[in-house]
């Protein structure tokens, strides 16, 4: 670990008010790998419980040591305190220049301890799993507090939870010999996909994290979260020009996720997105009607409204949405949801990282702003129940309100109607990244691939175009939404305060009457 890196992550984490969303590399998120609508009700929940003595079974620590740490943690007062155990294991394998000759494995474990008093937080973590280290860490987390001790629970009671992504075969039991043929297959298909393809690289990753949250009020919550991602990058040459592109897909799923159909689809997407660049150009610069294609265009919601609805910004009064609850902010046909309950989705959670069950939270109900995304601190501030949105990247961070899978439900129009209604505009299909200024409400996202719409028809391909706008203004300018809502299957990671968490996003085909399009005008 180099020092400049530490410094950058510090500055990044210090730059509150700005949040970014990215997919790895220069790739766009996936559009169409899995054709289906976004379910509108939570999946059926199955209850799962941790082993009888999970501290010992999973971390080799006995419960007495955890209680002793909790005592130290609450020894100077606490409205809430929690101890977060995490063990994560990940593997990746890469194909480059015709061979699979690079692999990476990682094991990280640690325990984060948090004391909350009002809106103040003391946090410390240790990577040393001994009773002494736990107690020492608890004391340093409690150091800022100046109140009188709060008694710890007599014991921790295991709380059941849903089971949205249990694997038949966990990744720890899948040998590299099972992955190599799949990687080889994808690489071979990609290399043969077009004569202009010169380079193919494939990056595979899989992993699991196991968490255990013990709270001051005696709850004990566990989760085991798998994740896998496959990414294809292509470089192609034609008429002396070089273009690169690719595609990727991700889920909280096991090796069975990689069906032949999914592999074929991701290769086809990578080929299309790369080859179309040879003919793609820029749209004209300025304000234009923008059609957002169903799927990955959910990036609009993530940036234009999702971050602004995270309740930490609102309790601090630093979000543009701070005073808009109960107000009409979009047309009647707009309903926007942030949902942790979708089986096996990248943004799915059984419980959040404070041990609260993940929910389906309606942010905008038929055009009216109805709820923020809450963690424990903001829920206490507003006197509401937490929404199961308290997430953290790892034991190295205190939880914050975060999105899970953010999407818009179906609207009353059709994609055909929407495109036919546009005289001169663009349709955006794939994206690489987005960002927002929470207070000013200004957001952006970057279109990697799209098309011009001329006289109601999709015509020439476009590329590399940034969109910038203001969240509430854009929501008011949503004039049509189709009945084809779906989630993207790409591997999106959302960054906030220096913490990255996996998220999903989705949208039906939507028309925004006017957006600022980064284009080029002929001289």
């Amino acid at each position: 670990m180099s020092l400049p890196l530490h410094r950058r992550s510090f500055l990044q984490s210090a730059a509150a008010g700005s949040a970014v969303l990215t997919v790895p590399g220069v790739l766009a998120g996936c559009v169409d790998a899995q054709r289906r609508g976004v379910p509108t009700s939570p999946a059926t929940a199955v209850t799962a419980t941790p082993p009888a003595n999970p501290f010992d079974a999973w971390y080799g620590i006995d419960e007495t040591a955890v209680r002793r740490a909790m005592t130290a943690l609450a020894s100077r007062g606490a409205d809430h305190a929690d101890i977060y155990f995490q063990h994560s294991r990940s593997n990746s394998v890469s194909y480059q220049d015709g061979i699979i000759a690079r692999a990476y494995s990682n094991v990280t474990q640690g325990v984060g301890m948090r004391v909350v008093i009002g809106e103040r937080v003391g946090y410390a973590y240790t990577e040393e799993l001994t009773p002494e280290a736990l107690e020492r860490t608890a004391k340093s987390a409690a150091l800022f507090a100046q109140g009188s001790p709060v008694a710890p629970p007599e014991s921790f009671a295991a709380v059941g939870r849903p089971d949205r992504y249990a694997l038949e075969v966990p990744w720890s039991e899948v040998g590299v010999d099972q992955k190599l043929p799949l990687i080889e297959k994808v690489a071979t298909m990609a290399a043969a996909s077009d004569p202009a393809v010169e380079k193919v690289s494939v990056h595979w990753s899989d992993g699991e994290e196991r968490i255990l949250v013990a709270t001051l009020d005696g709850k004990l919550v566990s989760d085991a979260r798998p994740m896998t991602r496959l990414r294809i990058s292509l470089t192609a040459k034609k008429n002396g020009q070089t273009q690169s592109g690719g595609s990727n897909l991700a889920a909280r799923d096991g090796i069975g996720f990689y069906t032949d159909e999914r592999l074929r689809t991701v290769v086809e997407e990578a080929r299309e997105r790369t080859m179309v660049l040879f003919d793609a150009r820029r749209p004209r610069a300025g304000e234009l009607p923008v059609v957002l294609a169903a799927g990955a265009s959910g990036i609009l919601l993530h940036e234009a409204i999702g971050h602004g609805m995270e309740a930490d910004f609102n309790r601090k009064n630093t979000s543009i949405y701070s005073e808009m609850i109960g107000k009409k902010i979009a047309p009647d046909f707009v309903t926007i949801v942030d949902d942790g309950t979708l089986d096996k989705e990248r943004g799915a959670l059984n419980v959040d990282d404070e041990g609260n069950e993940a929910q389906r939270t309606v942010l905008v109900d038929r055009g009216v702003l109805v709820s923020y995304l809450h963690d424990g601190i903001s829920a206490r501030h507003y006197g509401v129940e937490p929404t199961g949105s308290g997430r953290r990247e790892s034991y190295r961070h205190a939880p914050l309100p975060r999105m899970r899978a953010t999407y818009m439900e179906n609207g009353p129009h059709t994609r055909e109607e929407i495109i036919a209604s546009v005289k001169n505009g663009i349709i955006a299909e794939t994206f690489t990244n987005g960002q927002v200024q929470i207070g000013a409400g200004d957001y952006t996202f970057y279109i990697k691939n799209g098309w011009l719409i001329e006289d109601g028809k999709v015509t020439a391909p476009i590329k590399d175009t940034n969109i910038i706008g203001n969240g509430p203004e854009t929501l008011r300018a949503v004039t049509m939404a189709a009945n084809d809502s779906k989630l993207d299957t790409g591997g999106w990671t959302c960054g906030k305060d220096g913490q990255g968490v996996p998220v999903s996003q989705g949208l039906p085909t939507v028309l925004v009457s006017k957006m600022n399009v980064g284009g080029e005008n002929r001289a």
Partner: protein
Amino acid sequence: MAVALATGSGADGAFASMSRRRSVSLSVRDQELEKVQESTDTSLSLQIYADGRFSSHGTNDLRPEALEAFVAEAVALTRALEVDTFRALPDPARYATTLPELDLHDPAVEAQALEDRLETAMALNARVAGKDKVISASSSVYAGYGESGAVSSNGFSGMYSSTSTGMYANVTLEGEGDRRPEGGWGMSARHLSALLSPQEIGDEAMLRARRRLGSKKGPTAKTTMVVDRDAATSLIVRLLGPASGGAVQQGRSMWADKLDKRVLDEKLSITSNPLIPGAVASRPFDDEGVASFEMPIFERGTLKHYFLDSYYARKLERTPTTGSWGNIIVEPGTRDLDAIVRDVGNGVYVTSWLGGNADPTTGDFSFGLRGHLIEGGEIGSPVGEMNVTGNLITLFAGLEEIGNDPFEHSMFRTPSLVFSGVQFSGE
């Protein structure tokens, strides 16, 4: 020990690096302590060479029995991969032997008491909190210290201690309607004494926030763009990213086949220097243990070197340089921002970017921006919700002037930059 475990498990070669860091961060919001965080991180990363095959690994579970199992599994995984003839440890002749004294460790950072750090964070916050139109102001102070070291099976061994410390302030203001414009600023340094005062940092953060008040959409126009020194950094990073060996070798670089060719305006010279004493990106050796050296990347507009680690150097059949960036120095010009703006007359002054991206293969870019109009030779009204779009190679071919104002404490010493004929999208 990891290297010994690896070779004991049947590896032909290994490179292990370790780091241990302790850090403290404090944040204060509206004159109240908001968060205190303390931590110690220890990590081991290990690269294994076995039978012509290669893999890399990381762990923080350093209990001897856990480590032994981890390494044995890592060696077994390596053997399941295909042979890669380009993989080998670096030539030992390139390793750092006697490490240069780079003044990277400041005992004062380590010794500072929590109360002193809190006092600094409060002083920084006091400069911005509760002032006119301020809805909320937060400030944070960070300090970290520790050791980084590496050992290889073919003779490298090196370790150094370092410190880093920083301050940052962020301000949210009452704007028009529901808008709450915000701005912030901060800096990092190796030495406590190198940090600007909390007052100076707070004032810069406040200035940056206030400049956003009353921001309007700018025009759609082709005009001159002046990029301030902070915002210029991200353009320079976009030029350097595609100069990495991996990007070039994989054909995802606008600089492929461009070595020793004039590719940018000859006013532009950029050097990577990891040997500046006390600087934030200085280091005695790189990620492979190779002794640090100063390296020109662009010299008077000509591409001089790629960032080439041993692996991609072999694949490209070139002499290796280093895959690691040092402090990035852009050779400054002679005039300050005021003089430049006076001569530009009319255009757009960019103070920060919002989103956007660039294709490293073609150089095509499109960025969101915030800044001001330049009117009659002066910095005028604030603008936002604008994009700037073009191609990096074309943009830098139109580089009109470089300012004399790089921020000497940054890893990126980039002065203000002036470009002509740039396409903006606005209203």
